């Protein structure tokens, strides 16, 4: 079985038509579906949050069969993720794509659980601490993309679960969780 780092690749990764955008509707729907699954799976295990369309992305080429996705195909597969709420374009030119292997809502739930598990209710912490602090080690929150984290926090703030305020340092924000 072929692997990419520690990621196990599915058998169809060696199937050349997998790397050509299929023109027939039914075939293409299935192909897009398989690409969506694979991208999310790969990003989740590798903790990848951002895919740049113009940069090399290991999943988008297969040197074993000498095939790689065209720009058009990459954009099509990522656009399919975006339309399902599993990804977001970060710019109008569709050059950078944020991959949401947890949806924003799911990230918010993870944060709530994280707060409960660590008894952080009514206490103050910072955004950076959630990403890099000792409490988050070993959880999905460790090293989470800052943009994604802020989105989830804003969602929770909107629901009245916490308050975000400007912290002492310029590049970090403080968070006060409510009980």
């Amino acid at each position, binding site marked *: 079985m072929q692997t990419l780092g520690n990621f196990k690749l*599915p058998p169809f990764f060696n199937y050349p*038509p997998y790397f050509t955008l299929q023109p027939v509707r039914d075939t293409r729907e299935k192909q897009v579906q398989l690409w969506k699954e694979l991208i999310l799976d790969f990003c989740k295990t590798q903790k990848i949050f951002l895919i740049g369309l113009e940069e090399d992305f290991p999943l988008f080429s297969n040197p074993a069969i000498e095939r790689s996705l065209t720009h058009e195909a990459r954009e099509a597969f990522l656009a399919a993720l975006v339309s399902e709420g599993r990804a977001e374009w970060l710019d109008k030119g569709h050059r950078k794509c944020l991959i949401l292997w947890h949806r924003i809502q799911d990230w918010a739930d993870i944060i709530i659980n994280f707060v409960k598990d660590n008894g952080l209710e009514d206490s103050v912490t910072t955004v950076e601490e959630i990403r890099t602090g000792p409490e988050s080690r070993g959880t999905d929150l460790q090293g989470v993309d800052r943009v994604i984290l802020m989105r989830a926090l804003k969602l929770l703030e909107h629901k009245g679960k916490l308050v975000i305020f400007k912290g002492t340092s310029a590049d970090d924000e403080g968070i006060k969780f409510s009980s």
Partner: protein
Amino acid sequence: MAGAALPKAELTTSGRPILFPNEIECSLLSNVELEPEGSPPLSSSIHLRSSFMILTTHRLIFVSDSSSAAASAAATANAASYVPLASVAHIFSLKKSIKSMFASPRLKFQLSVGSDGRVGGPAARSLVVTLVMRGKDDVEAFVDKFRQNWGARAWEREKESESASSGSSSIVESSASSSGYDSRGMRMVGVAGILRREQEMWESTDKSLQDAFQDLNALMSKAKEMVMLAERMRSKLLSAPSQAGSSNDEELGSKEEMQEWLLSVGIVSPVTKESAGALYHQQLSRQLADFVKIPLERSGGMINLIDMYCLFNRARGTELISPEDLLRACSLWEKFDVPVMLRKFDSGVMVIQNKSHSDEEVFARIKSLITRPDALQMGVSAGDAAMTLGIAPAMAKEHLLTAESRGLLCRDVSPDGFRFYINLFPEIPTDDIYLVKDQGIYATWIKCASSTSRLE
């Protein structure tokens, strides 16, 4: 039925008359009626009305067309009968009067009728018949042609030449085989003899070819001779391999090729605008339907329109048709009951195919091709498919694209080219992308693909 006293003319499946050998079609009139004079029992058996009439060098052929009739009439449709020009005793001149300016033109001629009242047998008495021409055709040109063909007596000339040629050839053969000497007294045995005889034949052939190509008019008048020559050369070539045991494969190959060429010469009586007039496209369409059968069979039930254009025009010799004429002739097939049809692929490529031709059969063959172990690994290109299916690459590509659109295949575009693979996408489960069922084409493919990667 009307015209019962007239001999029946044979028609092809597409409703074109089958001509006698050496018979040439000259003119075509639409909507005519044959009105005999005289008492009912005899005259009614000759009286007939037909949608069009073809004048050939030998006959007046009356065809009652089916295309205008209802489908229920299909059994009696395309019935045709003819008046042999040999039975025409006299042609009266076309009457010109004030009246004739308003009524349909009428041409009277005298017809020899047998004692039993039938036309075409031994003549017992004669009968005056009027040909009423209701179509908007050039009547005067027709009458001229009619008179000319009748005067030329092509049917008599043929009988003479037939008896003459069969007699002379038997004499030549017998003398050559019995004595073993040619006309110049040289010995005609062994390889040298064969070579000399061949040389002589080619010299005479060469001469007639040169004559034929002097100018196009000469070629036209020689056309009939050329077709006969082609036929003769073909039969000669057909019999050749049996006597020349020493001929090698290459010779044999070129002989076969030569035969093919000779076979492709040869619509003796092409439908032309001049002869068919207003019915040109309709008649052309029918002639084409008859012609395409053999090339279609040879190319597996489907042939590119462009290829057909070349073949058809080659067979027509000098009476070339334009691509528009061909297209119009093909599109007219829808209206006739012919076994062929024009088909347009999604890509815009147009082909002629048998109505019985089924895509399913082609797909079955593509499927067996694409599931071979090497095709599973490497896919197939249009060229590969063309070789296996025995068709032109452009045609093979159309078939592959059609198979793709049906979900049988999918494509792989890479710097190596455009290849097709068996469509595995429906076989792959989406809930578990690592799952492979033990049975099925997906598992077979994985086996094939992994066997090569181990080799590498």
